[in-house]
């Protein structure tokens, strides 16, 4: 397959670039934007929860681990990748704490409960595969939370995963906790899907603010993929940052870290 991928992101208004807490990983090495000729393409997107500490760092670890381990097709693979991430987290926190001490900025009383509670994030990991042995090309994805994948074919929203209703986004999506989770409960929340794809399809992976906007516009008969498809092309009226700001100004989109990965299957 020939896939052309583009990534766009903008922090929440009022936040600095360093405070951005979404994360993206595109195979084969995590930074696979551009044209990719490959038989299998893996990617992951995560959204660190605002009300947790080190959420951006946790989101970045999750996309890397889920991406490199191709935790995209089954619940056992999802749980195994999560277990790996949880297993490494204490070392991450210890490294962060040591770094703070070395910089003369030790952990304060108000950070201690948050660090003890751990970081939280959504995750969506997806894999796109060439057709083989007479089977059609397919994609698979696993997700926990409200980061989304949308597939557009022939000017229609062909697939939505895992969310399909603009009104179902809340401040309380299911989240992966760095402290670990009951695996039976986790399995119940993990969504898994496998679908077909064709040349000419476009895929859009995105975090919740953009996903809620996307589904809302689609539900009202609009074509939310149109401005996203044009982004970074000669047809674009605005760059991604300005376009997101405009939606925020018009109260069409929540003010949140906003991330988009666009994949065009050629």
């Amino acid at each position: 397959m020939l896939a052309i991928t583009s990534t766009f992101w903008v922090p929440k208004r009022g936040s600095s670039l360093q405070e951005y807490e979404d994360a993206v990983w595109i195979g084969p090495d995590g930074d696979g934007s551009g044209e990719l000729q490959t038989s299998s393409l893996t990617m992951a997107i995560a959204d660190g929860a605002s009300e947790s500490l080190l959420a951006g760092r946790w989101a970045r670890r999750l996309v890397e681990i889920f991406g490199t381990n191709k935790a995209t097709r089954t619940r056992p693979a999802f749980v195994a990748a999560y277990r790996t991430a949880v297993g490494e987290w204490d070392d991450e926190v210890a490294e962060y704490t040591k770094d703070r001490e070395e910089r003369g900025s030790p952990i304060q009383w108000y950070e201690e409960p948050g660090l003890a509670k751990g970081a939280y994030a959504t995750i969506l990991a997806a894999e796109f595969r060439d057709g083989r042995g007479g089977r059609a090309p397919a994609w698979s994805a696993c997700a926990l939370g409200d980061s989304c994948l949308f597939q557009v074919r022939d000017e229609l929203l062909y697939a939505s995963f895992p969310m399909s209703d603009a009104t179902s986004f809340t401040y309380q999506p299911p989240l992966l906790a760095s402290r670990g989770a009951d695996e039976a409960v986790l399995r119940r929340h993990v969504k898994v899907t496998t679908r077909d794809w064709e040349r000419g399809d476009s895929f859009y992976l995105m975090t919740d603010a953009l996903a809620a906007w996307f589904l809302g516009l689609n539900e009202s008969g609009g074509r939310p993929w149109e401005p996203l498809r044009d982004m970074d092309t000669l047809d674009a009226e605005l760059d991604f940052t300005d376009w997101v700001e405009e939606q925020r100004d018009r109260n069409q989109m929540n003010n949140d870290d906003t991330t988009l990965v666009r994949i065009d299957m050629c």
Partner: protein
Amino acid sequence: MYSAEISRANPTMFVFLLDQSASMQDPIGGGEVQRKCDVVADALNRLLSELTIKCAKEEGVRDYFSVSVIGYGGSNVGPALAGSLAGQILVPLSAIAASPARLESRTKKVPDGAGGLVEQEVKFPIWVDPVASGGTPMVGALTRAQSVVSGWLNERPSCFPPVVLNLTDGEANDGDPTGPAEALRQLASADGATLLFNLHVSSDKSPPISFPDSEDGLPNQYAKLLFNMSSKLPDHMRNYAQQEGVAVSEGTRGFVFNADMTSIVQFLDIGTRASDLR
């Protein structure tokens, strides 16, 4: 309404009114051997701590809120923070985080991982100390709150509405607080009217009551007065109260009787919540 973003670009405010009158010297009911002034000081310190922790991110506390703490007792109605913040009427949350009067060590029981509980030492910041002296100028306190809230709303007319929490035994003696409370509740941003909540500490030994929807069943006249002064919980706050196990209806008000009210901090949305899967 009550849907405005709470952020550094669009912060809101908390006003805490702390009853420091002589009647707060009396013990709280319900079998606790604690003075009411200790209970409200403890409750306020816990609220400030929870609010700070909620807004803490790496290397700092974000100013999603500014905080005013107004004490009232005897002839005094005014700023009640102790330590280096003494005398300040309105303080950004990052300054609250940076300047508790002191940090005490307390023990709390946490799960030991084997089905039991183990005591753990935690830091407990103190911003206000118990005071109990003189009469109860609640009308004066509510009037002062109006002034602080008005000033805030003039500068931030689109903010999430200010939240005022009155911690008291309800025994006002500078007049009927009903009118000033109503005037305070009428101060509004474009997103809704100011929310006035009441935490009632009482020597009455009746069982604790959290977020009732009717004055029926409240144990005394002070509880009924404070209930009727309290705002109804907006929809999303009612949903959070319900998640806490409170039976709610459209009439549910921001009022508790001899009960914890720290949960109101969690009724406010500042972004995706960090909660475990259930």
